[in-house]
């Protein structure tokens, strides 16, 4: 399968890394040859029909900061859209940074790929949260596959899990911790009794929180995931603006102490149900499945037949997220046979 990656930050590099680690194994197990034919970052691209060497590409990116410095095949100034016009490929891996204002440029990349008959795999929450229906319908109209497991919960299986493994069940609601950064901050505050600002600084020093942490701590990232789950698993037709969002920046050590006294922890919970789409700090029982620490994500799906089913996993990380992208690519290749 000829693969084109647009976006070569943490997730894109993770994908190249897992290709490097798993290529032989995947060929052996699934008779699937993962051939990287084009990669673009914000400054340029590298294009090679014979295939790009993932290890050399990673080394190039680390040394110079741009994929266009890849020997012989690098091209400066080529954009993602240019790439999609010129390259022959089977599957687009769209992993540019999330934009929750208009979902661009990822939205255009994905639509273009679909409209020219290509499958799409993405981890990009922005366009999914803003225009899920458009993307899903375009994929259907063009008879291509559209997979986005990595967009929610990183390595934690949830979308394919609900759609395939639990396919006989009706999913009535989903409650989950869908953001690792805030879970880290709240867990540390509960353990150390430290203030929000102090803990946020610590998380930033450890690269768990970004320099501008707004998307995470104000619940925006989790709200995007709520939308994706609502649309993809619960067949709702909603967008980002339908979610009531409250973040964790007002949480104080005093409130955590009060909660503890009653046997509760405070967690940022995303709720997806037909009555309510919400991201807000909530009280969870200390012994419940939601009492996970660190950057872990967790989600409980309430179903009609199987009752509650809970999944836990690493919600972020380059390799972890790439693992979900790789699963999507493999599942596309299986359906192509």
């Amino acid at each position, binding site marked *: 399968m000829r693969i084109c990656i647009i976006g070569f930050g943490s997730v894109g590099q993770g994908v190249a890394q897992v290709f490097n680690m798993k290529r032989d194994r995947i060929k052996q197990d699934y008779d699937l040859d993962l051939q990287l034919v084009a990669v673009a970052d914000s400054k340029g691209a590298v294009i090679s029909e014979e295939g790009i060497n993932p290890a050399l590409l990673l080394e190039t990116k680390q040394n110079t900061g741009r994929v266009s410095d890849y020997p012989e095949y690098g091209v400066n100034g080529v954009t993602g859209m240019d790439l999609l016009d010129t390259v022959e490929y089977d599957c687009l891996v769209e992993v540019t940074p999330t934009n929750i204002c208009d979902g661009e440029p990822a939205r255009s990349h994905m639509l273009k790929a679909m409209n020219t008959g290509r499958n799409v795999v993405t981890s990009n929450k922005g366009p999914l949260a803003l225009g899920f229906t458009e993307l899903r319908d375009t994929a259907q109209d063009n008879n291509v596959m559209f997979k986005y497991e990595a967009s929610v919960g990183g390595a934690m299986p949830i979308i394919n899990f609900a759609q395939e493994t639990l396919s006989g069940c009706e999913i009535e609601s989903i409650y989950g911790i869908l953001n690792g950064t805030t879970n880290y901050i709240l867990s540390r505050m509960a353990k150390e009794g430290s203030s929000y600002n102090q803990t946020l600084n610590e998380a930033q020093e450890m690269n768990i929180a970004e320099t501008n942490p707004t998307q995470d701590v104000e619940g925006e990232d989790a709200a995007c995931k709520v939308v994706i789950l609502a649309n993809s698993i619960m067949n709702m037709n909603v967008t980002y603006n339908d979610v009531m969002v409250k973040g964790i920046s*007002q949480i*104080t050590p005093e*409130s955590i102490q*009060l909660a503890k*006294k009653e046997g509760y922890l*405070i967690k940022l919970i995303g*709720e997806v149900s037909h009555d309510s789409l919400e991201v807000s700090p909530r*009280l969870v029982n200390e012994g419940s499945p*939601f009492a996970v620490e660190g950057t872990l994500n967790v989600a409980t799906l309430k179903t009609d037949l199987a009752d509650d089913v809970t999944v836990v996993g690493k919600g972020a990380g380059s390799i972890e997220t790439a693992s979900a992208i790789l699963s999507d690519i493999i599942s596309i290749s299986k359906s192509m046979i």
Partner: protein
Amino acid sequence: MRLKLVLELLDVPGQLLDALNPIGRLGANIVAVIHQRDVKTERGTIPVQITIEGDEETLNKVLKMLETKGIQIIQVDGILRKEKITTILIGNIIDQDVKDTVNILNQLDGVRVADLDLKMSDHPEHSASKIIIEADYGRKKLVTSKIKEIGSNKGFLVINEV
């Protein structure tokens, strides 16, 4: 017919007798009483299990009598009559008059604020209060949405249960 009740009594001498005496007078048989004084709820009250026997009319009279005497019936035949709802509010509790919040909740039918705990912060606008509410079974949704409404009116961050 038989009815198994769980009552919540204050840990004060005479309470149990006060609850049991009128049951007999109304014509119901008391089949069993399980009273463990060392098992207390967090409010210091004692749950007492009693099993009574009688015709439907008599048993209904008993339930009404207990309610008018202000005795809390927590369970009837294993079905919870009351549920506990915990919420935490963060904001300027003093300025926004916490008593008023409690009053609004107490005015809801079948809802009673059972416990209140405050923790002042160095920044008064970020003080926290924990409210424990007892509500008739099935009223949880109403109570949590009322709390949300209070929160948005008074500028509190509301932390409800999942």
